[in-house]
């Protein structure tokens, strides 16, 4: 977080530099089943973020000493490609990617019925093709759809979004400039059916009251993203001429609030 910057990112009418209101998501696009080789896949755009996720497994766990005789392990690798950011990033994992991979892996360990597949590994790959703040949330959203596309039983889909603080206001789904000059960032992922939080990080400066407002805004937005996830899977199944199992059919614009 850049801290208490003087850069004006919200105008007097409460409109952000990309035209959104403070509680408005960027345009979101979700597509399931976009790759042939992977067992499951999804493509997601959150504004200018472009993210691809693929799932392989359950398959033999490699290296062997990581096998768990009682359940599958979920191994997520989050990666950003070299030309997805302003200055070319040298290929390969950096410390940030390692941390994000770890917390996303933990989140999915909770939702996947890992006990169904002892000794195996479920491998989730997230590739950020173009980055514009909020990539871990877009990636998690995509990976969740890819897991469903792979037919892996889960407690629920996992929508994810970041809430932040900009010009002393709580705003939803920060884009790049807001992230650079903002005052706080709070990435979240929830289980919609229970409203529980399975991923949460925060950095910057929030009073407890601001946090409460941010959490509320984030949970609400996650429900909208959830509808788009289900819709993407519904379209995918429809294309496959399979039974449409989506509970609430929804268009590109979410059904709820």
């Amino acid at each position, binding site marked *: 977080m850049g801290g208490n910057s003087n850069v004006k990112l919200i105008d007097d009418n409460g409109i952000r530099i990309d035209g959104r209101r403070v509680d408005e998501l960027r345009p979101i696009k979700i597509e399931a089943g976009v790759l042939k080789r992977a067992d499951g896949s999804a493509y997601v755009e959150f504004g200018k973020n472009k993210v691809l996720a693929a799932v392989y497994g359950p398959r033999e766990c490699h290296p062997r000493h990581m096998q768990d005789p009682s359940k599958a392990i979920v191994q997520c690798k989050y990666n950003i490609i070299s030309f997805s950011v302003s200055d070319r990033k040298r290929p390969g994992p950096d410390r*940030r990617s390692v941390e994000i991979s770890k917390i996303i892996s933990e989140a999915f360990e909770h939702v996947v019925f890992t006990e169904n597949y002892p000794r195996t590994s479920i491998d989730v790959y997230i590739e950020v093709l173009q980055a514009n703040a909020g990539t871990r949330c877009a990636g998690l959203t995509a990976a969740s759809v890819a897991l469903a596309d792979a037919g892996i039983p889960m407690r629920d889909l996992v929508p994810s979004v970041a809430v932040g603080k900009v010009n002393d206001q709580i705003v939803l789904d920060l884009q790049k400039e807001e992230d650079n000059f903002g005052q706080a960032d709070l990435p979240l992922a929830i289980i919609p059916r229970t409203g*529980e939080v399975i991923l949460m990080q925060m950095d910057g400066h929030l009073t*407890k009251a601001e946090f409460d407002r941010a959490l509320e805004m984030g949970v609400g937005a996650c429900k909208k993203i959830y509808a788009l996830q289900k819709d993407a899977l519904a379209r995918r199944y429809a294309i496959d001429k399979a039974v449409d199992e989506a509970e609430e059919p929804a268009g590109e614009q979410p059904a709820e609030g």
Partner: protein
Amino acid sequence: MSRAILSEIKKDHIHKLLAKGKRVDGRAWDEFRPISIQPRFSDTAEGSARVKLGNTDVLVGVKMAIGTPFQDTPNKGVLSTNAELIPLASPTFESGPPDENSIELARVVDRGIRESQMIDLEKLCIEPKKEVWMLFTDVYVLDYDGNLFDAATLGAVAALMSTIVPAKENDKGEDFPLPINHIPISVTAVQIENSILVDPTLDEEKVAAARLTVTTDENGDLRAMQKGFAGALSIDQINRMIETSQRLGNELRNMLG
């Protein structure tokens, strides 16, 4: 993945006691283990501290050097935080480059220090764009019995508070203490079934479903958070953990004088 296996007997024991509202070592749910803080442990570091939380033992050192600032912060010193989970401290720690656990630890400690604006980095500028002080904070875990996040943050904060900038030997004027603005304190709690336990031991971490680390400043404002482990947290649980962190944070801050 990140946590070793605990014997079933130990697990049962922890669960049975918790059902009666008790912890294995007799502490209250919101009670830290005995805390020892030994600043200036090392003659060779510019600042250092050895911190024990019960049997968890960490040694933190701060080294300083003169370097060039980052392009986007030409008038600010540079912070760098690293954590080493050396195999001396635990049978589960392995030799080699930092793994996901030590990277997460370092990044959470770093965010607490950085986002609280603990250090007045502008006072560490020698000549804008050309020369600034660089701070290398290295956390070494010597004995591992759970709750590394709080031990390491406390150690890093104590080490930084003891740091004397070695200006004289670098021909940059008189030595001076590191300019400190805020004192961030992290408090970590885990959730086991319906209980919340502050400052978990290693055994408690092993049976815990979810973990939340909350770093606050003197005003009780939130500066950094990190949710961990595969479990989910309800919003009520999150709120209770945050409030506990605000309260205990002040107690710990007083220990730093």
